């Protein structure tokens, strides 16, 4: 147990306290208590930064299931730590923001913060775990907490729909990832990510490499909303805005990015990885930016812009993976690892500017009552601080100076140009596509960034179309986006602070061979008149022209063919599956217990009987059999007779008495078979049981219409199945006698007098050797008895209650 472990479980532990705090201090907003958690985590984890800047890492391990190689191992390296800092840092800001966003009086705050803490702990677990199974567990926990948070306002149909959609898609990816993890384990024999990376060569040459890689990427792409799985993210915007800012832009959706980055050293350097990651990323980038332009809902616009930016980061990671193709020390390493540097830089920048934009949009929504851009406009003078923050965020997103987005966007262009010149992986033919796609997407990114500011804050103020009278937000709501806005500026002016402490350790984690190659490199926003600068200038020029003529071409979106709307695919697919499973279930779930029992019995016959005969296991040992005397034959006949009578009789009383006789005969058999304890118990039990049966029958009224008779015909089908089961058991019992696979453990109990001081071995087993069985058994008796009491008594009380009310 280390402090880092504690930091991961701290939010989960604290979540338990939240409902209590909520009840105990109804006058204080619960968020203030919760705020302590991310602050503590951030503060503690920040102390690792100097260590990482020196190129060191830390590893702590708690054995969990060592037998299966599953241990709660925490690995602190650049990649994990920076993610953890983003998670806790933005988490703290989001909690401050939520305190003002969510009303103490109206909202179920305890639920909200419990889910939020659950998410925070899970997310920290994802980025800090070294064991893939542990990572997977935390990964699914983020999906679940995201589901709960999207459905936070579960009264709304849209929230429920969005939550379900997100859940289905991300959990699908999660399962794929689990399959991939198991494949990786089969190849490398370990669940530790570090050890998998060490065996990268083995992994890449294995037959299962491609399926393992594809399934892993499926997990990453669904989580990070990559095309065509991005469709859940816009619907996830039904969540409260603090959640959208936190989960669906800054942290959870970056888990996929994290996963790709984490496994780049294992899978990277191969053409498949390079092509898939790069081009899925690029396609998502352009698809997201194209779709963002047509959005009318502010959060919808931000959702598509997030998709697009995630695509950008993803494609950079793909391009950067080419660095692993080269030998360490080669010039290609630095050239292509540069893309990874850009990726992690943009990742941090995106968290800052997109987080602040979401918060500003939340403020607009909160203060005006709408997020529809057609109703908004002219808020600049009314909400000057929000306007300033929106401008900072948007221009950073558009990639303009003096904001951090400019630097990382320039680096992105550099990365695409480097990748275009790559002469491996068949890139010579298609390489030119990359910068072109990147540039076009950037133009649309510029356009939607301008739309966001222009439609909301400039233009005409339409107070009559707003639900509330607009005014500036309270200070507490403005502080968190202001801090992020300040960071946007600060990172632009001092990029190397973050470069040395965050980016370079991260690059070293993703491209191990690039560790140290950027030691002398300083990030700066001015490189002279290089192609990247001209690309940015062209983006601005074309973007402005297109924005000015927006109304003329926006109609083109309506001509998008129906089949391109992926949401329809999802809807039809889902309803199709629902119909299909309904049909299947209606077909076999008849509601008759008899049918279900028949399925069970037939399955037993087929599986047990089938394997029995296929393995040809039937043996009949006739030597060493116990003898039979007349008394035993008589007993057997009585047993047979009473059994047949139970089946054949139409009278209930006869059936009960027959079962009683059966029980007594079994008790007599126990005596013959050297089991006096059993015989006594069975006799006593049978007496009480018969009393119980008779008691029930005594009180049971005569069956209406059918009289005393059960009125049941002999059912041949049922009997055949029953006969099948019975003969199967007989055959098994006969065959078992011949086998002696293991030494009986009973000899141990033979020493019961010395070990337990008891001469009666059976009793020694019950009370001493295996007392735990007995212990649980008396619990069963207790529960059954209380269950009976409740069944009878509760109804009596209910009846008494209704009598009074009448």
């Amino acid at each position, binding site marked *: 147990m280390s402090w880092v472990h504690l930091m991961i479980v701290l939010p989960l532990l604290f979540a338990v306290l939240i409902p209590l705090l909520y009840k105990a201090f109804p006058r204080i907003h619960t968020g203030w208590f919760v705020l302590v958690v991310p602050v503590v985590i951030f503060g503690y984890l920040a102390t690792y930064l100097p260590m990482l800047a020196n190129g060191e890492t830390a590893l702590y391990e708690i054995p969990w299931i060592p037998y299966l190689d599953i241990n709660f191992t925490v690995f602190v390296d650049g990649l994990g730590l920076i993610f953890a800092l983003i998670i806790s840092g933005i988490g703290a800001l989001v909690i401050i923001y939520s305190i003002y966003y969510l009303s103490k009086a109206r909202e179920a705050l305890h639920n909200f913060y419990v889910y939020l803490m659950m998410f925070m702990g899970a997310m920290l677990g994802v980025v800090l775990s070294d064991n893939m199974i542990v990572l997977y567990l935390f990964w699914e926990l983020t999906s679940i907490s995201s589901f709960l948070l999207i459905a936070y306002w579960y009264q709304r149909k849209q929230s429920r729909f969005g939550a379900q959609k997100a859940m289905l898609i991300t959990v699908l990816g999660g399962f794929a990832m689990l399959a991939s993890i198991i494949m990786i384990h089969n190849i490398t024999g370990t669940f530790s990510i570090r050890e998998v990376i060490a065996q990268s060569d083995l992994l890449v040459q294995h037959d299962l490499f491609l399926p393992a890689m594809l399934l892993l990427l499926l997990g990453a792409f669904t989580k990070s909303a990559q095309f065509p799985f991005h469709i859940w993210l816009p619907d996830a915007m039904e969540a409260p805005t603090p959640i959208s800012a936190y989960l669906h832009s800054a942290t959870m959706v970056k888990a996929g990015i994290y996963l790709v980055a984490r496994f780049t050293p294992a899978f990277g350097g191969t053409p498949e990885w390079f092509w898939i990651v790069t081009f899925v990323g690029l396609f998502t980038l352009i698809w997201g930016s194209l779709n963002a332009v047509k959005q009318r809902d502010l959060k919808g616009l931000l959702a598509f812009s997030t998709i697009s930016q995630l695509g950008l980061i993803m494609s950079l990671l793909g391009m950067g993976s080419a660095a692993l193709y080269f030998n360490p020390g080669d010039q290609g390493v630095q050239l292509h690892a540069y893309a990874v540097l850009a990726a992690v830089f943009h990742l941090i920048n995106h968290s800052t500017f997109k987080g602040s934009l979401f918060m500003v949009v939340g403020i607009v929504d909160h203060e005006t009552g709408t997020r529809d851009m057609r109703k908004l406009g002219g808020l600049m003078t009314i909400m000057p601080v929000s306007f300033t923050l929106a401008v900072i965020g948007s221009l950073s997103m558009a990639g303009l100076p003096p904001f951090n987005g400019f630097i990382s966007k320039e680096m992105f262009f550099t990365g695409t140009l480097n990748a275009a010149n790559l002469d491996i992986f068949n890139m010579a033919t298609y390489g030119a596509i990359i910068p072109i796609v990147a540039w076009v997407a950037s133009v649309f990114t510029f356009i939607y960034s301008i739309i966001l500011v222009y439609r909301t804050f400039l233009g005409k103020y339409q107070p009559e179309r707003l639900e509330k009278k607009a005014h500036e937000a309270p200070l507490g709501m403005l502080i968190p986006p202001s801090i992020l806005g300040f960071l946007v500026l600060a990172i632009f002016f001092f990029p190397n602070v973050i470069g040395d402490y965050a980016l370079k350790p991260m690059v070293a984690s993703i491209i191990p061979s690039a560790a140290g190659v950027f030691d002398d490199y300083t990030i700066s926003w001015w490189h002279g008149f290089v192609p990247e600068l001209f690309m940015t200038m062209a983006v601005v020029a074309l973007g402005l022209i297109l924005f000015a003529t927006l109304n003329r071409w926006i109609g083109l979106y309506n001509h998008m063919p129906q089949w391109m709307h992926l949401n329809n695919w999802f809807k039809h697919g889902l309803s199709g599956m629902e119909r299909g499973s309904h049909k299947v279930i209606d077909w076999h779930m008849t509601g008759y217990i008899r049918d279900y029992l028949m399925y069970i019995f037939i399955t037993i016959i087929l599986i047990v009987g089938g394997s029995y005969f296929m393995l040809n296991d039937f043996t009949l040992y006739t030597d060493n059999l116990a003898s039979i005397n007349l008394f035993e034959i008589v007993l057997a006949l009585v047993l047979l007779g009473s059994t047949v009578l139970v089946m054949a009789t139409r009278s209930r009383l006869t059936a009960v008495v027959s079962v009683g006789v059966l029980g007594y005969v079994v008790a007599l058999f126990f005596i013959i078979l050297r089991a*006096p*304890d059993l015989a*006594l*118990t069975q006799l*006593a*039990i049978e*007496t*009480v049981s018969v*009393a*119980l049966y008779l*008691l*029930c029958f005594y*009180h049971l009224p005569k069956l209406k219409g059918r009289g005393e008779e059960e009125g049941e015909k002999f059912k041949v089908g049922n009997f055949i199945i029953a006969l099948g089961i019975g003969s199967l058991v007989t055959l098994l019992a006969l065959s078992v006698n011949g086998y002696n696979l293991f030494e009986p453990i009973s000899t141990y109990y033979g020493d019961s007098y010395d070990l*337990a*001081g*008891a*001469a*009666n071995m*059976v*009793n*020694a087993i*019950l*009370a*001493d050797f295996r*007392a*735990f069985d*007995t*212990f649980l058994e*008396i*619990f069963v*008796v*207790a529960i*059954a*008895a*209380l269950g*009976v*009491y409740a*069944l*009878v*008594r509760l109804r*009596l009380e209910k009846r008494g209650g209704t009598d009074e009310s009448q």
Partner: protein
Amino acid sequence: MKVNDVILQTVTKIVVFIIFTFAFYLFFAGHHDTGGGFIGGLMAASALVLLYLSYDIDTISKAIPINYRTLIGVGVSVSTLTGIGSILLGYPFLSHTFEYVDFPFFGEIELATSVLFEFGVLFTVVGGTLTIILSISEDV
């Protein structure tokens, strides 16, 4: 439809004590001979059931004022506590021990902690059985 059977009731009065004595014997004999908590419990329970059958519930409830649901609780608690006792002494849950002790008049007698555990079993079985039967018969 109450059946008043004088012979049954008279016989029951005597037989119940015989059964109780037998149950008592079986319980303590269980350590070395046939018997034990279950059997003792069931015997005691059947004695009580016999009483309830031959008399009516109200009479017996007055004569033996035991709440059988409480008895279940007592039984389960006794067993649990003997288990926890071994934890407190640093042994695994439900470890038992035994000792031979010399008593005046009785001579050497074996004392085993598993008897305490068996007491819990006995109480639970008696309580459970009678709770089941009485619940049904009360619900007419």
